[in-house]
């Protein structure tokens, strides 16, 4: 399978996918760490793809989304954004709305705690 096929299969075959540097338990970049941290704290079930483990995926995901940076968050096959967008959406409550609309389970109280801590 080509890198593009692998990426498409991963993104379309899982509800929530995070392409990141490192893993959800051991992120290797502050930006990846921030998004993984939000998802972990909110108790979202997601697949993490470590782009550092595969150079073809690392470049391929940028081509796939036409987005030059890592991390990249996908929900139900759709590209949501990178670190800055996910951070803004978390604090504004838009991420909750997106998860609600897409039927993705998460801990609403934990999301509220993130917002309280950053208010």
């Amino acid at each position, binding site marked *: 399978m080509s890198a593009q096929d692998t990426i498409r299969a991963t993104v379309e075959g899982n509800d929530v996918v995070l392409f990141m540097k490192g893993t959800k338990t051991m992120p290797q970049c502050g*930006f990846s760490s921030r998004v993984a941290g939000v998802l972990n704290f909110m108790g979202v079930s997601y697949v993490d793809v470590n782009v550092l483990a595969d150079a073809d995926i*690392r*470049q391929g995901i*940028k081509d796939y989304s*036409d*987005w*030059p*940076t890592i991390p990249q968050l996908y929900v139900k096959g759709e*590209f*949501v*954004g*990178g*670190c*800055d*967008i996910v951070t*803004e*959406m978390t604090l504004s409550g838009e991420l909750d709305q997106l998860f609600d609309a897409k039927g993705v389970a998460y801990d609403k109280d934990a999301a509220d705690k993130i917002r309280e801590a950053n208010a």
Partner: protein
Amino acid sequence: MAMTASELEQLLRESFPAAKITITDLAGDGNHYAAEVIDASFKGKNRVQQQRDVYAALKGKMDGANGVLHALALTTKAPE
């Protein structure tokens, strides 16, 4: 491999001549910046579209190993 805040602003200015642009050097190393771009062209676009426009303006400066910029925290919006 780095660039100054004014070089970065100039680059963005070429694509967004009328925008309000605020650059912050986060680490003081010319490699980690935050940029806020407020431009009328963002009206009606979602954040992904807005930030794609900004990345396009950077003309490959963030392209991984060959890029001169490692980190750029972006905030984009249309004027109120």
